[in-house]
């Protein structure tokens, strides 16, 4: 049992089923779907608030997404901690900067990878808030509620992603 618990990887089906059961819990005990992209908007609001409290009060978006450390914010801290616990206990925790596939395609320069990650993150942050959710909020929690918007969103996530990845790496499946 503990060997399995600490093994580096689990079957994707087991992991998926586990996430499904986790979502039962978030609905039951927190009356919420599981989503993480709101945490990033709250963090942006907290930074704005630290710079100018008045400015934040005047921005309509932060009246909807309040910059406070509530459930929707603590979840992201948990995800970082959970990733660490899983990797550390399995003995796979290791600092890295340039993923292997990136290095073999674009070179192993750390600063270049960081610049690309920053640009990708900015695009993703805008897109996640624009669409009102991410791969977890729309892609899993929304689709399982049979939300029309979430099914459209997840199709668009993958359509945009497959097209952009194909342009960057070449359409390898062809």
């Amino acid at each position: 049992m503990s060997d399995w618990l600490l093994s580096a990887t689990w079957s994707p089906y087991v992991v998926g089923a586990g996430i499904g059961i986790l979502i039962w819990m978030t609905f039951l005990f927190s009356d919420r779907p599981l989503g993480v992209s709101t945490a990033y908007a709250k963090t942006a609001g907290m930074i704005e608030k630290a710079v100018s409290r008045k400015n934040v009060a005047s921005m309509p978006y932060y009246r909807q997404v309040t910059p406070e450390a509530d459930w929707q914010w603590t979840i992201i801290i948990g995800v970082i901690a959970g990733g660490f616990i899983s990797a550390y206990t399995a003995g796979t925790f290791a600092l890295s900067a340039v993923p292997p596939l990136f290095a073999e395609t674009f070179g192993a320069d750390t600063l270049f990878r960081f610049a690309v990650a920053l640009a990708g993150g900015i695009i993703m942050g805008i897109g996640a808030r624009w669409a009102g959710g991410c791969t977890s909020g729309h892609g899993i929690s929304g689709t399982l509620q049979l939300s029309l918007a979430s099914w459209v969103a997840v199709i668009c996530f993958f359509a945009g992603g497959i097209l952009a990845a194909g342009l960057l790496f070449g359409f390898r499946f062809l």
Partner: protein
Amino acid sequence: MPFEGIRQNKSLQALLGLVFGTVFGFLLQKGGVTLYDVIIGQLLLTDFTVVKVMLSAILVGMVGVHAMKAAGLVRLHVRAGSIGSTVIGGLIFGVGFAVLGYCPGTAAGALGSGALDAAVGMAGIVIGAGIFARLYPVLERSVLNRGKFPAETIPQLLGVSPMPVACAVAIMILVILALFATMGL
């Protein structure tokens, strides 16, 4: 609704968020979906781990959430989307997905496993969310409400109860997963 006391307790909820997040991050890391190569492999259609995780989560989650809904234990949380919000935002997200190589949840799990580029990506997502918040009043007036979807859920769109739709989705997921197995993906 049951558990209303727990649901209204703000500090307990902040703690529960941390607990649920930890379980989520642990599972994402165990599934291998916190790896850049696995996520890009999915977008290149050479590695189907991400879709396998997502479809199994949808299948299991859908059964439980709809059963609890029918029993009066939970309520659904869905919002109507629009072409201007869901489609345009979704496509922008997709481009970011391919450039960053993580999504907002898996980036956090990747950082926990030591991926420093994921931390930089997370900073980018915060900046992007901040840019969106600044643009929000203009976008709200001009784009976000364009082409509102006629229904919040697929059953509402079809004018049927959730049960047959949930069954159809469950069968569709099982067929896709069986196809992956037979194709050796």
